[in-house]
């Protein structure tokens, strides 16, 4: 059994919500980056498992940790509602477990370690010989694969390790990347520390599949501004790598969908999720075209800043940039350029006034994966404005591959537009599985 860490103190428990009418957790298979997502469809309602029998007393003295067979009645994220075999329609002892915890086992596990199955007290006298009953109930039923826990463990392993150096978007100057070192890894979320950060700086958190992190030497290859210490710059110029350098092979490479001969160009206008306010989609400008299909964009509603510190790097296949008219097409509010009234802003007049052209629609990623998310589904999501926090959340809008994620109990201004394949969203029960603290819904204390 796992030990609870001090960090889990006060972590939110979904259990009371799981039985509420209409509660709907996004299925684990929707989250391709989540542990055992690829085999989740093999775990089904009706499946039999072996689980600790907590409905026992005297018998347990002989067998201190006795087990019995249970049926999966309902699945919500990583959590499953179980009923001990033999209870029929009696829901009295039903209980929730984490399907990936070491509390549940494939049927047959107890026999492999020489433990007899012991029926719960409530039903102990229901049958004289439980063999016939179990034979009837188990023959032809489904159970977990014998290697289930190996698969769980394998899928929880990070490609990274503490001490590796990498290039990370600078949280204090989003237009550049900065050399940082991995301090901690929790559920494949990396806690990194910038090379020059003061002792009181909390560093930065992101998932290992995040587009905000890059291998050593990336900025030099792409043409992005880098903040690094002199020895690093010298090593990169000579392409000398150390064993603590995170190299390309462990990073996600963005898929290239561009049509040869067609590229983003400086000055082109588009709509983009504001990297500093993820609830807003804004008018934006391509400020620079980097190598390997990366572009620097600037949100047109920002205050004037000639330094370029507020530019942000997106890959041209990013699902967070859109052709002009995207918001109007889907009835979404567009944050207009600075000085424009949202009620009167039109792209046509703005393009004329600024003598600019829109980025052609065929430059944008047209792919809409069959993701399975629907409005109302519940999940756990990192607060990307403070990404050490993972919070309970609800999907409130789905537009193609784009999801609007609402943090329960908070105003809509804290919502985040995220891609359906964002590595910053997780199934219900993920925090518990990886021992990451889960922030509960905000509760406002009302005084009378």
């Amino acid at each position, binding site marked *: 059994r796992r030990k609870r860490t001090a960090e889990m103190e006060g972590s939110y428990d979904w259990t009371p919500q799981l039985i509420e009418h209409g509660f709907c957790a996004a299925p684990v298979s929707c989250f391709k980056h989540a542990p055992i997502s690829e085999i989740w469809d093999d775990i089904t309602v009706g499946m039999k498992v072996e689980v600790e029998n907590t409905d026992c007393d005297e018998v347990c003295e002989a067998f201190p940790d006795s087990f019995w067979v249970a049926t999966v009645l309902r699945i919500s994220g990583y959590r499953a509602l179980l009923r001990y075999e033999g209870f029929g329609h009696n829901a009295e002892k039903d209980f929730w477990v984490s399907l990936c915890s070491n509390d549940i086992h*494939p049927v047959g596990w107890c*026999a492999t370690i020489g433990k007899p199955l012991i029926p719960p007290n409530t039903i102990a006298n229901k049958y004289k010989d439980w063999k016939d009953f179990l034979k009837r109930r188990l023959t*032809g039923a489904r159970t977990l694969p014998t290697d289930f826990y190996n698969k769980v463990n394998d899928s929880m392993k990070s490609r990274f390790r503490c001490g590796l150096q990498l290039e990370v978007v600078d949280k204090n100057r989003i237009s550049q990347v900065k050399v940082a070192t991995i301090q901690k890894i929790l559920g494949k979320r990396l806690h990194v520390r910038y090379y020059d950060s003061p002792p009181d700086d909390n560093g930065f958190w992101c998932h290992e599949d995040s587009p905000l992190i890059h291998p050593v030497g990336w900025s030099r290859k792409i043409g992005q501004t880098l903040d690094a210490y002199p020895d690093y710059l010298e090593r990169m110029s000579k392409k000398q790598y150390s064993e603590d350098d995170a190299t390309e092979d462990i990073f996600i490479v963005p898929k290239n969908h561009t049509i040869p001969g067609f590229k983003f160009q400086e000055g082109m206008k588009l709509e983009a999720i504001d990297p500093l306010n993820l609830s807003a989609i804004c008018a934006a400008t391509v400020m620079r075209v980097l190598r390997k299909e990366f572009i620097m964009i600037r949100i047109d509603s920002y205050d004037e800043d000639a330094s370029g510190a507020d530019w942000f790097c997106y890959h041209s296949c990013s699902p967070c940039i859109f052709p002009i008219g995207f918001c109007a097409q889907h009835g979404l509010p567009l944050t207009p350029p600075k000085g424009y009234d949202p009620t009167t802003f039109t792209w046509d007049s703005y393009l004329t006034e600024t003598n600019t052209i829109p980025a052609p629609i065929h430059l944008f990623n047209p792919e809409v994966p069959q993701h399975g998310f629907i409005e109302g589904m519940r999940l756990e999501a990192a607060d990307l404005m403070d990404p050490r926090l993972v919070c309970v959340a609800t999907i409130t809008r789905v537009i193609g591959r784009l999801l609007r994620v609402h943090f329960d109990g908070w105003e809509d201004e804290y919502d985040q537009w995220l891609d359906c394949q964002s590595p910053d969203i997780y199934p219900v029960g993920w925090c518990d599985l990886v021992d990451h603290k889960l922030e509960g819904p905000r509760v406002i204390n009302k005084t009378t």
Partner: protein
Amino acid sequence: ASETKTRKWEQKQVQIKTLEGEFSVTMWASGTDD
């Protein structure tokens, strides 16, 4: 990770031990990757 894998449901003999004795049953479990 981009490889397409097919998983099958496979029949397997599962040993069960109770206080009354041991027996085996045939169950289904998701099988090996192809």
